């Protein structure tokens, strides 16, 4: 098959842009540690309440300026639903679902992850600006899905 010269240039440019975007994505993922939330740990979805750490959900200071939020998601709420962390601290959310699939999103940030029963999901964020952030469920989870939200206060 013979390609037109301009077509060759167009395709080379197009593929070049795609490859460049791959390189940027790969660099961010593997060199800068900015990969998408990809926890591979598992849990029995029917025994969440008696499995550590989810038998004791809450906000824990785990190091200097480091926090862990152990959280369970269920129709139609987040446990715990009172979260306060200081500005500039690195916060890791460790989550699982007690029933159906939920989404975990903090509006105005890049925190966005699926929370699937049987799997544990983690995502880390540093909140630099103090304020109140909206956490919402972004995967349809039933009749009260639109009510499933909470806030996180950064002081």
């Amino acid at each position, binding site marked *: *098959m*013979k390609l037109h010269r301009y*077509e060759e240039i167009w395709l080379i440019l197009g593929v070049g842009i795609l490859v460049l975007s*791959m390189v940027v*994505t*790969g660099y961010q993922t593997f060199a800068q540690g900015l990969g998408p939330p990809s926890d591979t740990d598992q849990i029995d979805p029917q025994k969440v309440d008696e499995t550590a750490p989810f038998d004791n959900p809450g906000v824990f200071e785990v190091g200097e300026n480091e926090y862990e939020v152990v959280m369970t998601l269920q129709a139609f709420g987040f446990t715990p639903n009172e979260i306060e962390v200081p500005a500039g601290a690195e916060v890791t959310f460790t989550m699982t679902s007690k029933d159906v699939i939920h989404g975990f999103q903090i509006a105005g940030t*890049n925190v966005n992850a699926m929370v699937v029963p*049987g799997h*544990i999901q983690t995502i880390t964020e540093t909140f630099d600006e103090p304020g109140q952030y909206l956490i919402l469920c972004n995967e349809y989870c*039933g009749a009260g899905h639109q009510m499933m939200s909470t806030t996180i206060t950064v002081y």
Partner: protein
Amino acid sequence: MEMAAKEIFKEKTNKALGVNPDDARLTLTYFSLAFIVLFIGGTLGLLQGLNRAGLLELPAWFNYYQVLTAHGILLILIFTALFMVGYFYAAMSHTLGGLIPSVRKMGWTALGLMLIGTAMVVITIVMDEATVLYTFYPPMQASPWFYIGLVFIVLGVWAATLGVFTNAAIWKKRNKGQHLPLLSFFAVGAFLLLFLGSIGVTIEVLMLIPWAFGWTETVNVMLSRTLFWSFGHTLVNVWYFTAISAWYVIVPRIIGGRLFSDTLARVVVILLVILNVPGGFHHQIVDPGFTEGLKFMHVFMSLSIAFPSLMTAFAMFAVFERTGRKEGAKGLLGWVKKLPWGDVRFLAPMIAMIAFIPAGAGGIAQTNNQLNQVVHNSLWVTGHFHLTVGTTVVLTFFGIMYWLIPYLTKRELTPKINKLGIIQTITWTVGMLFMSGAMHLVGLLGSPRRTSYTTYGDNATALSWDPYLFFLAIGGTLLFIGVVLMVYIVFHLMFKAPKGNTEFPIAEPEDDASTTPKWTERWGLWVVLAIAVISMGYLVPIVDLVVNAPPGSPPFRTW
């Protein structure tokens, strides 16, 4: 010389015989049902848009999520499937000299199976027994009859697929050494992709049925989700496939031009079949249970689909320029003026193509890890597919109606209906601009998809999204007007338009075009390559999800 003689002969026979009335009846039945479904689905869409903007409260007996489930399934599955079968069967009938009687029967069988399936699905949704959305993610559990209905729809699609393959194979046998006409080649490719793409979801549904009846206690949630997405996105690309077949073959003829390159079009078909199925995995970039390495490989596999689309973009604009220059256009962009903008048969698919520039770019953006994380499950995604499917695909479908229905009914497109069609096209375009534009913007701000009206307890962030949602509602209203106009036009062309002769516009190759190489017809090889690519994408994660599965999930009914 010999080619020309053959062409004249073909034209003469077509004129003498015209369209086969049995084939026309089959396609017209498909189209009638498709546009009734479009009307119902569009009405549901309007209700949703108004609810989402807080302008309308839906009653408890027909709530937002029920409406959303019906809207998604009716438009994404049923409207498009009915349209695709009707269109490609007409294309085969025209380019292969009539459907073979057994294939016509398969077409009717397919319709029957799809209608049985649709009835079961719609009834369970209306009874509020299946408010699980288009994705029906377990462990949310619908009535078993909902899943059985889905099986019937898939069986219908497979029956139609078998018909396409049979007709193409018999034609090849009768016309040894000849290339399958390009439009029928597209049909074979599109149905092959549809078949390959629907295998995964069929396995999923067959696992869900015994679970929904209570015969098995738990379900593997991530396996179901992964099998679903091997289909969920491929399906969208099948409709896109259907649309570009008209861009390559029909549009050049309408503007008085020739095919860009028969070989290139066939290569695009082959690439779309081979590369497409693993593309759906990018819906799972922020899922647990998969390593970053696997996800990165899938970013690459998703992006590769852009390659044939880039080829298409070049080919289309090359045709426009070449045709314009032949008519004496000068300068860099003089050919733009030579295009028949007042002809709705051109205008609708042209706007569809233009819409695909931002739509495709948005698709490329959200395939990448970090960008996906920003927009995943936000209204951006809904905006994206209303731009791709709702604009690019559907406007092309509409554009096809203006000549295909008169061709089948032996009627004519009058200047009046052409004008109404232009109004329809502009209404649709502006409606989508408002709706999809607002969805893209508010999605970037974090507003989620698949949610009824909510301010999350008057949260300040959520309240700041309201102005965008208002534009969404305006767009939705315009789109509903567009649906009403289009349904009127379709049925007018079917029953009221004046009698006359309408051509099935098929573009011919350029006089000096090189012959198409034989290897384009090696379907066995393309299927093997497609299976290799699908295995590359899915073998490792699926084996891992089966072997290394967490304890399963019991069913939930949360609506």
